[in-house]
């Protein structure tokens, strides 16, 4: 909310610098987002109040005139002026040569120089609001109040600071100048002066002219109104227009401006109806009937439905309660008698109506934040007073006050012990009271004891319990002035099982294998989802009711496309380097039940993908090799080292993989995922066909059923030397290397064994392959002799022959 400092000064004495004031307010919870300084560049000597004492035509130009100005202290000036609204007797702002002014033509601030205009010397000028930088209006010169004294520096008269407060939703009371003034009074330790609102009423009695019936007391707890006859609708006085403009409002006419002024002053929205446009003498507050419509003041026709609340006369709606008035009872130049409304409307219903109709107004903004009904008569009287003062109206005697709600008189007990328990420091009741009384709290007991009962000010709808008052004390005292201490209570015991340990081990291992971690969005489109059979055909992925982008409205049921999209995006910008990336994140499976509290199953997946050269081909030291299945497999193997469980791979085709180039991954017999080369149509879809893409796709949930971060299982290293033999074997192609190696490993003298070469070609018969395996022989008991190794060697060949019909290549 924009609040001019000059307006605040009407209610509270402010002796501190505006920047310091803004800081104090911010620290206390009323964030001042910005301060607009008006006239801080004005020079006291060169900008002064002057009076037009003579006005002559320009000899050479019809549109220009030559005013003679009294600058006070016997000083006079004669200049050239083109403004049409200049008249003899006006008080205006005169800028002498050397004044710093805004030039609308150049759009910049410039120093004013003397000029010869059509043959007449002009030293200085009469200023418009735009040139002074206090308004948009450049149509004519700025006319000052008649009471302004000639010769006064304009800086003293018009300079101001406008605070722009950004309020949290709990403080509707500060959507007002007076509410903000209370905060300032508490912070600066001063008192509040309330504005005048008692007026002289005429002979007419309000009850004789109009009646108010409330049909929906829940949504309208209170309705107050006054009747004012014989008003003259005209533009508002300059001071009122000025204050509204500074507060961000557009002046309309004196009646409407006063309702806006009082709304800003007290935070209570008001509305004035042209009484003579009403049918009947009754105001009815009721819910709209189905398909009823109302043209609001902004000339929009709105179709209404219950439970939207309307203000109606005996035949039609005349206003949308708490939001905006109807055009059918608008105040215009012909208006003479008005009915003024200050009511209270239910916050939730106002909010629901304004969001359904897309009509967010100053009034609805305040009502939906729950303002107190006690404010209605206060603001009504103030506005009635101002109308009687400024619009020549005669208020009827009495006001209408239809009232169905209890008063918000709530007594709250506050104790020194609770303050200490929450704040961690002992505070005396005297110190507490000294702060909260300035915020408008009242106390029941005369004396200040360790426990007292207080009532919060009625306009503070946010205070209902003792802890709210603790915050009041703390924020005015200053959070930064309160003590600081570390947690002293005992640390709660924690179980040893931490579900994140395995996942974080995997994440670290993937990174150490040269993989780059990515994080993508959880929402995707249906086309992408349908490329992968991640959910059963008869089920729909979970969708968003109000997506930001209509095409992306589904929660991802698989992480694979996200990783492929990331891979693709990076391939587009980098054709050179190999890409290795992975993501660990949640996928969302369709809801299985209709229970009110049913939630989708969320599962964590780990997806990695690699493509391109294993190292850059452009380096002097490397020859370049495209990454393949075994690079990805190596990464997976590396990842599971340090976890309990034995990893194994079984060939098994899958829909998104190239036939024959995919395996299921097991950890201790439990299926934990897949690894394989991406099918070519999918590579093409993701624009990744330049080199094979190998992906692995793991379920964290499955992994966690088996794996734990391994406790190191130490065994004494052998003290005896090892020897190795390489064994070249001819086998059927179907026999995989893992079967061969595990057969070899069964021999007691074998410490390790692994394939070192694989060959299929002219020297090997069709359907056969040659596999060379290295066997490391070692014993924990002694140095093995060649004879013992030979014997073991023969045993190994025998079991391979027996089990898989494998023979030695060179035998």
């Amino acid at each position: 909310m924009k609040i001019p400092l000059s307006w605040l000064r009407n209610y509270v004495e402010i002796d501190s610098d505006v920047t310091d004031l803004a800081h104090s307010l911010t620290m206390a919870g009323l964030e001042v987002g910005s301060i607009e300084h008006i006239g801080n560049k004005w020079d006291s000597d060169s900008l002064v109040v002057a009076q037009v004492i003579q006005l002559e035509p320009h000899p050479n130009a019809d549109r220009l005139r030559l005013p003679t100005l009294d600058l006070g202290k016997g000083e006079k000036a004669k200049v050239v002026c083109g403004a049409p609204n200049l008249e003899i007797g006006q008080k205006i702002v005169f800028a002498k040569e050397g004044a710093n002014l805004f030039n609308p033509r150049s759009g910049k601030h410039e120093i004013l120089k003397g000029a010869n205009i059509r043959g007449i010397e002009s030293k200085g000028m009469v200023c418009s609001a735009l040139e002074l930088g206090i308004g948009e209006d450049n149509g004519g010169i700025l006319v000052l109040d008649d009471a302004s004294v000639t010769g006064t520096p304009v800086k003293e008269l018009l300079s101001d600071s406008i605070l722009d407060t950004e309020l949290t939703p709990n403080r509707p009371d500060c959507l007002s100048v007076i509410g903000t003034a209370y905060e300032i009074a508490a912070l600066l330790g001063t008192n509040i002066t309330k504005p005048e609102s008692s007026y002289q009423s005429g002979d007419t009695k309000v009850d004789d002219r109009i009646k108010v019936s409330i049909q929906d007391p829940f949504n309208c707890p209170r309705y107050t109104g006054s009747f004012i006859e014989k008003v003259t609708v005209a533009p508002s006085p300059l001071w009122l227009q000025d204050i509204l403009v500074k507060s961000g409002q557009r002046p309309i006419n004196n009646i409407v401006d006063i309702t806006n002024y009082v709304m800003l002053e007290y935070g209570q929205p008001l509305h004035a109806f042209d009484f003579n446009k009403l049918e009947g003498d009754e105001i009815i507050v009721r819910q709209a009937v189905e398909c009823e419509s109302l043209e609001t003041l902004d000339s929009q026709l709105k179709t209404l439905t219950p439970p939207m609340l309307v203000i109606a006369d005996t035949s039609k709606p005349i206003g949308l309660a708490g939001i905006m008035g109807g055009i059918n009872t608008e105040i215009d130049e012909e208006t003479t008698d008005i009915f003024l409304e200050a009511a209270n409307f239910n916050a939730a219903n106002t909010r629901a109506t304004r969001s359904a109709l897309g009509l967010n107004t100053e009034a609805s903004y305040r009502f939906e934040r729950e303002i107190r009904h006690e404010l209605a008569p206060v603001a009504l009287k103030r506005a009635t007073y101002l109308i009687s003062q400024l619009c020549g109206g005669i208020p009827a005697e009495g006001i209408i006050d239809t009232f169905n709600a209890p008063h918000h008189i709530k007594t709250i007990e506050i104790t020194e012990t609770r303050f200490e328990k929450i704040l961690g420091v002992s505070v005396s009741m005297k110190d507490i009271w000294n702060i909260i009384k300035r915020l408008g709290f009242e106390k029941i007991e005369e004396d200040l004891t360790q426990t007292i009962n207080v009532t919060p000010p009625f306009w503070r709808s946010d205070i209902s319990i003792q802890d709210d008052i603790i915050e009041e004390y703390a924020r005015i005292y200053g959070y930064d002035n309160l003590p600081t201490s570390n947690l002293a209570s005992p640390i709660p015991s924690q179980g040893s099982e931490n579900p994140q340990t395995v996942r974080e081990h995997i994440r670290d291992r993937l990174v150490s294998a040269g993989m780059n971690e990515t994080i993508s969005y959880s929402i995707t489109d249906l086309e992408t989802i349908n490329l992968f059979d991640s959910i059963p055909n008869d089920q729909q992925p979970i969708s968003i009711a109000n997506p930001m982008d209509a095409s992306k409205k589904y929660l991802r049921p698989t992480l694979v496309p996200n990783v492929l999209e990331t891979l693709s995006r990076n391939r587009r910008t980098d054709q050179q380097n190999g890409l290795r990336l992975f993501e660990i994140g949640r996928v969302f499976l369709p809801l299985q039940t209709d229970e009110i509290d049913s939630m989708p199953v969320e599962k964590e997946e780990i997806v990695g993908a690699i493509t391109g050269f294993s190292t850059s081909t452009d380096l002097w030291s490397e020859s370049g090799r495209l990454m393949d299945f075994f690079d990805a497999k190596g990464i997976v193997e590396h990842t599971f080292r340090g976890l309990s469980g034995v990893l194994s791979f079984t060939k098994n085709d899958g829909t998104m993989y190239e036939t024959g180039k995919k395996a299921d991954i097991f950890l201790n017999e439990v299926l934990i995922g897949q690894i394989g080369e991406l099918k070519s149509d999918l590579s093409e879809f993701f624009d990744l066909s330049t080199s094979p893409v190998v992906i692995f796709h793991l379920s964290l949930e499955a992994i966690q059923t088996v794996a734990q971060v391994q406790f190191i299982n130490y065994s004494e290293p052998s003290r005896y030397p090892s020897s190795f033999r390489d064994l070249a074997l001819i086998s059927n192609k179907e026999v995989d290397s893992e079967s061969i190696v595990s057969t070899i490993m069964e021999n007691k003298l074998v410490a390790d064994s692994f394939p070192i070469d694989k060959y299929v070609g002219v020297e090997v018969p069709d359907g056969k392959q040659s596999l060379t395996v290295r066997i490391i022989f070692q014993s924990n008991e002694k140095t093995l002799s060649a004879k013992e190794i030979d014997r073991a060697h023969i045993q190994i060949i025998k079991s391979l022959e027996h089990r898989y019909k494998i023979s030695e290549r060179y035998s």
Partner: protein
Amino acid sequence: MDEKAYIDTRTQIEQKALSSLSQIRTVDDLESWRIDTLGRNGTVTGLLRGISDLPVDSRKEAGSEANSLKDILTKKYEDHKADIENSDSIQTENESDFLDVTLPGRNIALGSLHPTTAVVREICQVFESMGFQTIEGPEVELDIYNFQKLNIPEEHPARDMWNSLWIDRELADGSRPLLLRTHTSPMQIRTMESQSPPVRVVVPGKTYRYEATDATHEWQFCQIEGLAVDKDITFANLKGTLEEFARRIFGDKRKARFRCDFFPFVEPGAEVSIDCFKCGGNGCRVCGNTGWIEIMGAGMVHPKVLAGVGYDPEIYSGFAWGMGAERIAMLKYGIDDIRHFYSNDMKFLKQFS
């Protein structure tokens, strides 16, 4: 020399010969190896001669050991010779007499943690060292947990603070029970409902808002929630804990500032800022000329929230906070656009390796 010592010598000769052979790349070096090993004065020949020094009954066994070694090494020699002769004899840099030490080293694939992961870990570790346990919760939440049990009833204007993405599912009364969680705060409720006090948890996780994206706003981001509840936890503890956090993440000299702020589930509520590490508080672009940088929201757990989960607010009190992980990462690493985080450009990600 006895038989055992003889076999040990044989094994040593084998190991040494094979390991030196494996490093040989030139025919000349190979020929020297042959002479040293299998030549007339070579080690294997020496071994064979040594048989005569053994007791008679060991000689047959030893002879077969030594001969098998000779066979193995001869075969290896021939294989290796063929390898060298077949390979293109490119002389690599390493084999020249003179290394150009300024050539770049061989490339090693560089992995990296996503900066969000890195900063989440760092933050959680700070709190873990103060006795907090890291836990996680669901990303699709019930309205009840995301709002209602946090003292944010339906149609409350405070809901505007969290614009929500709702799941397409309606109950009979037309209300939508599910949404993508807008903050990690529902885990305050879930944690307290599942255990009795004392509680000390830190909860990282993805959160979602219906929000236009710009340099400082993302609709998906990671939040880190914290909660401590016990019999004697105070606002002073809140300040102490979060100040300690600020110093550990942003450096010893950082000052934390607490100002009043509003979140419906805490009372009193606070916004925590640190003095700008860029300008030291004088005002600059990073701190928007205020000298202070907002890092999180915090407060004492609202008595209604405690009562709602069955904790007696007369006995128990606690504090909670929530911060954006990407925001902390941006401040820590000087990243000026939050959109980098989910664009996953390798040129961005690899800087965090």
